[in-house]
């Protein structure tokens, strides 16, 4: 270990000797890991001097140490909060490793191939070379870290038809403190593929956790992928997440990012609309209370003509919570006839709550239709008084209006069980949740 390394980077050094798993032990896998690790170490952790990181008090991230989970098989019990969805193929990863006991049989489908990354790279070792994130922008740092230490993950390939519902679960246990896990997802959809995938991050047991996740997605040739990401981590978990999606001709990628748990959750989303008539949608919900801190950084790039994007984000901030949304839409000079809409609404429920929204639009040609709107406010006093005047309890009235604030977003979710879970979480951060349940 070199002198002068921060405890975080020292953890990287130590983990390096311990890491083994999905990306394989062959020399190509080792090279991929090393490359990613070296690039991460060279770039270092982000600091408040980085434009995109200025909001995040990194809360001693550099000073925190972490360890990889022990390699012994994790206990196979289903944690609380696992969703039940009929007809879904469920793949469960506990502390980064595939857990067959908690997973369902994989539903046979002629259009869908669901496998672990271990299985994928054993079958197609040539894909390993493309596992390292390609550019060095600040936001790829955590993607590099993931590549260096991911033990396993999920690969979903859909081609030429509609896939059954897929449920990917990543459980971080708290058996030792400061345990780090590196969930990883790869999605490929092509030739008229249609797929809805639920990605669920949750915690089981106590202890602080560091979760560093990566999703790489390609949607091409008249396909559609809806990815519902549900963050219901425990209040002591920190998650740094990177998502990169490439969307090809006549294809749609819709991200439903549902941050309803975790101490710090930061998601860096990068969507490139690379094919004609490609569309990208981001529906974001951030619900914070206590001292929770959520960030969503999204970049949507219109690279070619007639591409469409829509970003809708709702944040509900209570207590001393903080919610940051940084959304940038870039329209390339050649991307004529593109349409983009950004809409952000923040609801502040306490005087110590804070929401920062930064919609950005970079338009490099004149033949486009782009709009953006942002609002931040408290509960509408007219609505509140109307409910009170009907005998509704004050706390419940506030809960109802908070729920009502996010309902339009929940309506857009493609999986009812996910909407219900999120609705319960929203109501659950408020008093009288049993009563509010009647309304949802």
């Amino acid at each position: 270990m070199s002198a002068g390394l921060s405890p975080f980077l020292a953890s990287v050094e130590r983990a390096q000797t311990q890491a083994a798993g999905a990306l394989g032990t062959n020399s190509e896998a080792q090279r991929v890991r090393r490359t990613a690790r070296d690039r991460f170490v060279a770039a270092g952790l982000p600091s408040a001097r980085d434009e995109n990181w200025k909001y995040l008090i990194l809360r001693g991230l550099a000073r925190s140490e972490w360890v990889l989970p022990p390699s012994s098989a994790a206990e196979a019990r289903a944690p609380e909060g696992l969703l039940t969805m009929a007809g879904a193929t469920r793949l469960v990863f506990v502390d980064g490793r595939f857990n067959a006991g908690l997973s369902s049989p994989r539903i046979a489908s002629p259009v869908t191939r669901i496998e672990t990354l271990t299985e994928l790279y054993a079958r197609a070792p040539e894909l390993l070379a493309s596992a390292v994130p390609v550019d060095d922008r600040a936001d790829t740092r955590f993607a590099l870290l993931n590549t260096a230490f991911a033990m396993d993950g999920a690969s979903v390939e859909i081609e030429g038809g509609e896939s059954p519902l897929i449920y990917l679960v990543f459980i971080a246990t708290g058996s030792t403190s400061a345990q780090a896990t590196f969930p990883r997802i790869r999605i490929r959809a092509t030739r008229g593929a249609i797929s809805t995938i639920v990605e669920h991050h949750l915690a089981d047991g106590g202890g602080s956790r560091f979760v560093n996740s990566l999703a790489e997605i390609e949607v091409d040739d008249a396909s559609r992928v809806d990815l519902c990401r549900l963050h219901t981590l425990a209040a002591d978990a920190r998650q740094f997440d990177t998502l990169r999606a490439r969307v090809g001709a006549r294809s749609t990628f819709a991200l439903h990012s549902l941050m309803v748990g975790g101490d710090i959750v930061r998601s860096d989303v990068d969507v490139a609309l690379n094919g004609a008539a490609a569309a990208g949608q981001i529906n974001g919900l951030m619900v914070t209370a206590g001292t929770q801190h959520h960030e969503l950084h999204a970049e949507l790039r219109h690279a070619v003509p007639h591409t469409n994007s829509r970003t809708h984000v709702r944040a509900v901030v209570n207590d001393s919570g903080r919610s940051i949304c940084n959304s940038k839409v870039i329209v390339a000079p050649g991307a004529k006839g593109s349409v983009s809409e950004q809409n952000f609404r923040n609801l502040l429920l306490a005087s110590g709550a804070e929401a920062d929204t930064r919609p950005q639009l970079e338009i490099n040609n004149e033949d486009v239709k782009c709009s953006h709107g942002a609002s931040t406010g408290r509960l509408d006093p007219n609505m509140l008084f109307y409910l009170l005047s009907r005998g509704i309890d004050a706390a419940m009235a506030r809960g109802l209006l908070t729920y009502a604030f996010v309902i339009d977003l929940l309506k857009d979710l493609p999986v009812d069980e996910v909407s219900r879970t999120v609705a319960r979480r929203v109501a659950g951060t408020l008093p009288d949740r049993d009563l509010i349940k009647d309304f949802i």
Partner: protein
Amino acid sequence: MLSIQNLVVSIGDRRILKGLSLEVGAGEVHAIMGPNGSGKSTLAQVLAGRPEYTIHSGKVLYKGQDLLALPPEERARAGVFLGFQYPVEIPGVNNVYLLKAALNAVRKHRGIAELDAFEFLALVKDKMRLMQIDEAFLSRAVNEGFSGGEKKRNEILQLLVLEPELAILDETDSGLDIDALKIVAHGVNATRRPDRAILLVTHYQRLLEHVVPDRVHVLTDGRIVRSGDRTLALDLERQGYDWLRDEGRRA
């Protein structure tokens, strides 16, 4: 039932009610009339507990109880109902669920069991027929996308379901065509009972042709300047309010 004594109320720097007194007995229907800006809506909102107003002096007793000491939700549970001049749209909150929660809050306060879903729905559908409200209403959000007339009919539907002891209807007749006015009036008449008082706040007397009041009061510049029987409303209709304005200033 309701006793208002020398009520002085302001909002911001503006004094609106300047010593208003009024007595309403059980079983009575009183109409409060007056020109725009006289304080009619303020009176209605203050009685329901709207927090933006400052009460400087005066008393309001409801069934002998200090009404102003209660928060708005407790006034509602105790049987005070305000029909809003501008019913509020609440996207995302279902009409029927609000009605059910409101009714259960009142019933709980009165110490009677909550209605089950079946009984509740039967009750609501019965009252909806009376108010000629379409069944599609059941699946809609509170007042969302309702026309002005539908919103007012919805207020009266709530009145019929909640069965308050004191109903304050703030310009429930405004913006209604003659057919809707008749439906609303029919709904209000259906709630008249010996143990219930109704306060109709209105600018015009046309509602009073259909809901005949026991007493009519004229509110001008924050005070009641004239009280009488229903013929007072007809005088106002003929002569306007101007002849009473001076009395308000002198009083």
